[in-house]
C-alpha cells in the first residue's frame, strides 16, 4: 500500500494541531526485553515478540485482534542494516525454515510478515508500507485515525540486537571513507562515538556555564536507572539491576572522553506496541484515555559545517520546543511529565533547557539536576527512566507518559499533578515530540 506522507507536521508555524484532543492512546504492551536474541529460542524472535507486545496492548485496551483495522508495523532495523553481525542474521548465518527464512521476523518485522504469522488480524484494511520509527510513527498512527483511514491503529516498534559489537561493521569497518563520511571518518569522527554529534556541544556548554560532565550528567543517569528499576518490563528489572553508583559512573569504561559507557543506551532485543483510536471510541474502552494534543515530525539537520556547535544545537532545540508548544496550545508551565529522548546522555540537558520544563533556562540544568529530581519529589525529571534506565527500546518515554496520566505508574507515580506529558523518541535535532493529556481540551 503506497504511503501518503501528507500527515507530517514538520514545519515551523503550523499552529495548533487541528485534531488536538480528538485522538487517544488506549493501550500499550511490551515484550520481554532481552540483551540479544540467542539464535535458538523461536518464541523470542523479533516477530514473536512483536505479536506478544501487540497482544498485551490489545488486552490493555480491552480489544481483540480482529478489531484492528490499521496496522503500522515499523520495519526498520534499529541496529542498522549492513552495520555488522549484531544487526543482520545473514549472510554469515543460515536462515531457518519459514517463517524465519529471511531477515523478516528475525531482525526486522514487516506488515506482510506479521499478517502471515498472526492470522487473527482479520480486520486490517489500512497497512501502509513506509512506517517510520516510533517518534514519527505514533504521529502517523494518530493522523491515520484522525483522518478516518482506520478506527483502531496498532503501531508496533522493534529493537533488534544479535551477537556482535553494535554498529561496528559495514562502512565503519573499512579502511576508507566514502560519501558523507569522507568528511569525518578519517579523523575518527562518527555518529555513535560522538553521541549523534552532541558530545562536543555539551563540552562547549560546560566550558561556557561551568561545571564538570560527571556532575551534570551523572545525577540524570542515576535517576533514570532508579526509575528503570521501578518499571516492570524494563531491561534491568528483568535482567538484574545495573547497581550503578556515583563512583561507578565516574570510573566507568570510557568511550569518547568525557562520555562513558553509561552515557550510551544499552542495545536490546524487544518489541513495543501502542493502540490509538478516536477520543469518542476511547471512552468506551478499558483504560482512561490519554489524549494526543500534538505531534511533530522532521529533522532540523546537524549544523552548517563539519560538526554542529552548541549555538546551532540550542537554536535548533528552541525551534523544536516552540513547535511542540504552539502545536499543543500549551506552555512550559503546563507540562507535568517530561520524558525527552535519552539515547545519548547530552540530549537531556539540552532538551530540558529548550523546553524550559519547570522553568529551567539556559545554564540552569546543573543546579536543577543536582536538586531533587526523583519521582517522589517536586521535579520528577524523566520519570520513565527512558532508554538509559530500561534499555534501547525507545518506548519507555511514551509508556511512562501514558501510565502517569492514567495514574497507573505504580512506584513511579509522581506525587505532583500528572495531567500533561511530553514524550519523545527525538534524537538530536529531531522534532518528533508527542504531547499528551488526560483531558481532551
Amino acid at each position, binding site marked *: 500500500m503506497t504511503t501518503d506522507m501528507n500527515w507530517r507536521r514538520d514545519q515551523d508555524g503550523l499552529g495548533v494541531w487541528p485534531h488536538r484532543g480528538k485522538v487517544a492512546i488506549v493501550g500499550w504492551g511490551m515484550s520481554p526485553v532481552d540483551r540479544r536474541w540467542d539464535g535458538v529460542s523461536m518464541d523470542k524472535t523479533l516477530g514473536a515478540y512483536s505479536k506478544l507486545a501487540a497482544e498485551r496492548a490489545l488486552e490493555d485496551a480491552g480489544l481483540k485482534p480482529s478489531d484492528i483495522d490499521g496496522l503500522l508495523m515499523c520495519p526498520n532495523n534499529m541496529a542498522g542494516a549492513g552495520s555488522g553481525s549484531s544487526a543482520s542474521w545473514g549472510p554469515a548465518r543460515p536462515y531457518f525454515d519459514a517463517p524465519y527464512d529471511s531477515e523478516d521476523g528475525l531482525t526486522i518485522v514487516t506488515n506482510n510478515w506479521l499478517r502471515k504469522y498472526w492470522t487473527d488480524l482479520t480486520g486490517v484494511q489500512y497497512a501502509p508500507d513506509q512506517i517510520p520509527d516510533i517518534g514519527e510513527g505514533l504521529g502517523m498512527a494518530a493522523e491515520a485515525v484522525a483522518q478516518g483511514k482506520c478506527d483502531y491503529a496498532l503501531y508496533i516498534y522493534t529493537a533488534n540486537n544479535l551477537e556482535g559489537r553494535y554498529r*561496528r561493521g559495514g562502512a565503519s569497518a573499512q579502511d576508507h*571513507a*566514502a560519501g558523507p563520511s*569522507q568528511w569525518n571518518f578519517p579523523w575518527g569522527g562518527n555518529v555513535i562515538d560522538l553521541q549523534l554529534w552532541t558530545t562536543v556541544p555539551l563540552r562547549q556548554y560546560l566550558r561556557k556555564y561551568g561545571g564538570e560532565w560527571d556532575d551534570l550528567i551523572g545525577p540524570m543517569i542515576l535517576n533514570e536507572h532508579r526509575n528503570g528499576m521501578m518499571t516492570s518490563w524494563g531491561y534491568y528489572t528483568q535482567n538484574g539491576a545495573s547497581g550503578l553508583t556515583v563512583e561507578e559512573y565516574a570510573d566507568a569504561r570510557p568511550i569518547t572522553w568525557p562520555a562513558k559507557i553509561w552515557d550510551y543506551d544499552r542495545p536490546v532485543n524487544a518489541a513495543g506496541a501502542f493502540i490509538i483510536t478516536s477520543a469518542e471510541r476511547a471512552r468506551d474502552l478499558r483504560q482512561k484515555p490519554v489524549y494526543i494534543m500534538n505531534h511533530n515530525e522532521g529533522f532540523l539537520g546537524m549544523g552548517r559545517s563539519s560538526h554542529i556547535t552548541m549555538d546551532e544545537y540550542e537554536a535548533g532545540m528552541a525551534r523544536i520546543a516552540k513547535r511542540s508548544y504552539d502545536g499543543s496550545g500549551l506552555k512550559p508551565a503546563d507540562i507535568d511529565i517530561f520524558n525527552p529522548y535519552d539515547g545519548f546522555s547530552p540530549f537531556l540537558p539540552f532538551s530540558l533547557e529548550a523546553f524550559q520544563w519547570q522553568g529551567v533556562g539556559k545554564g540552569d540544568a546543573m543546579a536543577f539536576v543536582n536538586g531533587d529530581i526523583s519521582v517522589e519529589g517536586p521535579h520528577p525529571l524523566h520519570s520513565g527512566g527512558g532508554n538509559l534506565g530500561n534499555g534501547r527500546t525507545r518506548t519507555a518515554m511514551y509508556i511512562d507518559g501514558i501510565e502517569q496520566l492514567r495514574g497507573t505508574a505504580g512506584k513511579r507515580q509522581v506525587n505532583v499533578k500528572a495531567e500533561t506529558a511530553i514524550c519523545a523518541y527525538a534524537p538530536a535535532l529531531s522534532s518528533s515530540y508527542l504531547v499528551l493529556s488526560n483531558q481532551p481540551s
Partner: protein
Amino acid sequence: MPKLIPVPDELSQPFWDAVQQRKLLVQRCTACSTLQYPPKAACQECNATTLEWHETDGKGHVLEFVVLQDTHLPFRGPDQPINLAIVTLDEDPRINFFSNMPGEEPFKVPVGVAVEVMFEELTDGSLIHEWRRAQ
C-alpha cells in the same frame, strides 16, 4: 596514525585534488558570497548552484575537543586514545573541521589556541588536511 582514506566523488574531487597540492579550499557562493564546507551541490544560504572554489589562508582556532577511547571505527582503534578536535576557520568561524591535533598529547588539547593547516600523508601516499598549533 593511519587515518581512513577519503574517497573523492564528483563534487569533492576538486577539493581533494587541491589538498594534494597542499591547498585548503572551501566553496564560495557567487550569488551571496557565503563560504561553506564540506562542499554541497547548492549554497546553503541562498540555494544558488553557482559555487566556486576559494583558497583559504589555512588559519583557525581550536573550538573544542573530545578523546576517542573505544571507537566504532576499528581501523583507528590501535591509535587510541585519539584527540578529536573541532577547529574553526578564522575567515569564517561558522566553518569547522575535524582534527586529531598532531603534536598534542591525548587529553591536552589547548582549546582556543591558534592553529594552521598542515597536510599529512596517508597510507596510500595521498595527503589529508590536518591542523597544528600556529608556528
